[in-house]
């Protein structure tokens, strides 16, 4: 059973198309990640779902019934909750803000007080209960906003960049909270994020949006097997090479691009894109005997220390490859700018897409 | 009709400002209500025009005014039942004590003629302030200009020395005082203002300055909502010796002289317009 279905949804502002032919089905209890470049329509889509915006055409279906921002949808709206991207607060204290959703639902005072403090504690905001909501810091506002929506225990939670203003520790806390909600309360969540790793970590399904939906699927599929160039570029798939694929012996495919030949274990023919994950490439000073089918020689042209890993750019003639390695191996191998090295990667590590 | 408040009958009276502003009606009201505890007398003061308008609409039961010409029109139209003159006094021609036009001692129309003459010569020094509001006072003023042989609409009204205030008597006196100009005022209002302004009453007793107040109940046939019964009671009271005594004594204590003269059952005094032709209605009276 789908909690939410979106059919052929379009949204225009004036003549500017923001969303085009969006189709989406969200199962109950699922966490759906929405990812895409800035201005691609993520917020707009969430607002449409939350009935704050009227679609130009198309349907939004909640538990099998079409819903719209017209009258008579209060009971549906009360089952949804949204954390906005921009910090927003009613005048008054943090307590007033968090209690709002319960007040308008007419709960009694004691229940409200318990619930509010319970959620403030959950978000580490209990000390701020009587602070003016307008004076909160960026991250505090974001946590208050989350508490404010959680007190109403929504069935469908819409989160618009819920951790963009949080430091790593707070972010981690919020992430476990989100996972907890999904698991324990069976809350269905649709969240946008610019943090691709967060998207991968939290989502059961990911939709890559850019006006249209470009790909939708499990995180590992979207991130490792982009269906098209846009997704590949966007999720930061490196080493994307355009070439011509031809069948080779033993069920392998050979892809030719400039002076480079790449073997892939996948089947394809004709014009195609290839990608190899930077951490799937090993480096060695000498050409070694190995089961890796692909061996390319190149020269180190750039070294970046990313903190966790060393990023190398290696010029292999017609293509520039990105390779990641640990600091340890980097130091052990005594690599430096200009080093000429062999890159090796397995045919199974070569991903093909249109 | 039932305008009862606290079980009382309501009698609504429209009056010109002079009767209200001097405070005469307040005393009459108290005495009248004491006599008829069942009647609540309510006084509305305004210009003669709006008072008549109220009467026509049936919003008031009786009007107390001082503009004979229009009063008679009202009777003719059948809206009012009868003119009941109950008091009179005089209009005063007032001006700066220096009397730049030198009108002291003249009769009214002579004075107006002189004012016109001097005003034409030096409009800075000699000015006349008119109420210009179609009130009883204004009507009388126009009649005097006519009597002085002047064409009001053409010679007087647009003259540089002639100022129309378009306001009530008190305000007009204030303006005249500020501008040190001449004006015509009912005696009641002038006496009430005497202390506050520096103007002097220069002409007080000319026969064409006679100012008669009368009470006109509304005609219950034409204005069905009216409380004719109570209105007639008020007329009766005003004309009674009790009412006439209040009128005769009013103001003696405060201003050292009476502001109104009671008729005491006598006939309505007629203005002695000696030197000029009076209007048809004036003659008919």
């Amino acid at each position: 059973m789908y909690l939410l279905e979106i059919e052929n949804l379009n949204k225009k502002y004036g003549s500017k198309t923001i969303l085009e032919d969006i189709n989406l089905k969200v199962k109950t209890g699922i966490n759906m990640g929405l990812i895409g470049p800035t201005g691609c329509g993520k917020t707009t889509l969430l607002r449409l779902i939350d009935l704050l915006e009227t679609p130009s055409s198309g349907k939004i279906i909640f538990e099998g019934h079409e819903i719209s921002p017209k009258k008579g949808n209060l009971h549906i709206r009360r089952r949804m909750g949204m954390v906005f991207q921009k910090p927003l607060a009613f005048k008054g204290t943090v307590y007033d803000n968090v209690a709002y959703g319960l007040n308008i639902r007419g709960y009694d005072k004691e229940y409200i007080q318990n619930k509010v403090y319970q959620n403030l504690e959950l978000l580490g905001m209990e000390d701020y209960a009587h602070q003016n909501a307008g004076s909160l810091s960026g991250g505090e506002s974001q946590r208050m906003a989350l508490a404010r929506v959680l007190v109403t225990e929504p069935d469908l939670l819409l989160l618009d960049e819920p951790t963009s203003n949080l430091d790593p520790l707070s972010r981690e806390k919020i992430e476990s909270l989100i996972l907890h909600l999904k698991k324990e309360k069976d809350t269905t969540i649709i969240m946008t994020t610019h943090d691709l790793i967060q998207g991968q970590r939290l989502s059961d399904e990911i939709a890559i949006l850019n006006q249209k939906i470009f790909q939708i699927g499990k995180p590992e599929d979207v991130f490792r097997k982009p269906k098209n160039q846009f997704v590949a570029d966007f999720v930061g798939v490196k080493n994307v090479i355009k070439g011509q694929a031809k069948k080779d012996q033993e069920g392998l495919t050979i892809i030719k691009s400039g002076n480079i030949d790449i073997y892939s274990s996948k089947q394809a023919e004709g014009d195609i894109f290839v990608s190899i994950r930077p951490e799937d490439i090993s480096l060695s000073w000498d050409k070694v005997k190995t089961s890796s089918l692909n061996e390319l020689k190149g020269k180190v042209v750039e070294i970046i220390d990313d903190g966790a890993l060393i990023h190398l750019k290696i010029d292999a003639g017609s293509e520039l490859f990105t390779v990641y390695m640990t600091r340890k191996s980097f130091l052990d191998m005594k690599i430096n700018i200009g080093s000429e090295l062999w890159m090796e990667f397995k045919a199974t590590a070569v991903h093909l897409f249109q | 009709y039932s305008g009862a408040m606290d079980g009382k009958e309501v009698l609504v009276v429209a009056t010109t400002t002079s009767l209200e502003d001097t405070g005469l009606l307040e005393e009459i009201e108290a005495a009248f209500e004491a006599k008829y505890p069942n009647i609540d007398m309510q006084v509305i003061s305004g210009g003669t025009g709006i008072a008549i308008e109220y009467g026509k609409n049936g919003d008031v039961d009786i009007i107390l005014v001082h503009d004979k010409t229009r009063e008679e029109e009202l009777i003719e139209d059948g809206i009012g039942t009868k003119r009941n003159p109950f008091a009179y006094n005089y209009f005063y021609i007032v001006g700066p004590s220096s009397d730049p036009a030198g009108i002291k001692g003249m009769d009214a129309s002579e004075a107006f003629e002189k004012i016109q003459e001097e005003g034409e010569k030096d409009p800075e020094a000699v000015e006349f302030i008119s109420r210009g509001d179609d009130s009883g006072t204004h009507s009388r003023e126009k009649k005097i200009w006519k009597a002085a042989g002047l064409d009001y609409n053409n010679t007087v009204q647009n003259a540089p020395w002639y100022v129309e205030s378009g306001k009530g008597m008190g305000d007009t006196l204030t303006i005249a005082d500020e501008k040190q100009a001449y004006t015509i005022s009912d005696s009641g209002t002038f006496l009430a203002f005497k202390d506050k302004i520096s103007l002097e009453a220069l002409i007080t007793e000319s026969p064409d300055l006679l100012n008669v107040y009368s009470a006109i109940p509304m005609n219950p046939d034409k204005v069905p909502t009216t409380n004719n019964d109570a209105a007639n009671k008020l007329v009766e009271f005003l004309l009674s010796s009790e009412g006439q005594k209040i009128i005769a004594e009013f103001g003696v204590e405060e201003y050292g002289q009476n502001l109104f003269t009671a008729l005491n059952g006598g006939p309505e005094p007629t203005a002695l317009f000696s030197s000029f032709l009076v209007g048809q209605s004036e003659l008919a009276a």
Partner: protein
Amino acid sequence: MLSPVIDGIYQAINLIITLDPEMVEITLRTLYISLSSTLVATLIGVPLGGLIHFKAFKGKRGLINMIQTLYSVPTVLVGLFVFLLLSRSGIFGGFNLLFTPTGMVIGQSVLILPLLVGFTINSLSGVQKNIEDLALSLGASDFQTIYTIMKEARYALIGAIILGFGRAISEVGVALLIGGNIRGFTRVITTTISLETSKGNIALSIALGIILLVIALIINLILNYIQEK
């Protein structure tokens, strides 16, 4: 020669201290009438302003222009208009409201209604559009949303109500034409001031004006206190 002002202040203090019975009566009536009309106009004008603000419809801009134009309506005109309605020969003549305090409340309510509608719209426009979204998103009904936004705008809204009250308590056109300035029945402070001014009692007029302002100050303090709560 400002001595009438000083004299007026002295008289005002005197009238207040001695609790002059006629003064007390007039003051209470003034308060009753202006507060009632402010209440009536607020109860109609604020929701109406809210409706206009929240509904999108054709000609909205034009309607707002019309409402703002009515800020310029002279009190006498409203007085005349309501007079014609309430006059015994008028449409509502049967209710006998002319020359009654109730009639004055009606007239003043009509007078200040545009101010309340217009400044309600102004006040609500000052609230960020987002707040509406926030309320809706947290499950507020339409009515609750409007209430929330009004609460956000309460500082400005109270300003509008103070304005309406100020206009009602200070106006004289309606009070004179509809009330008739009947001693002991429809006489209020402003009509008394008019009367006393026309009688030339400037100091007394000023004294009455001061009393009116004192009353207004007290009402404003109360309204502001409510707003701050």
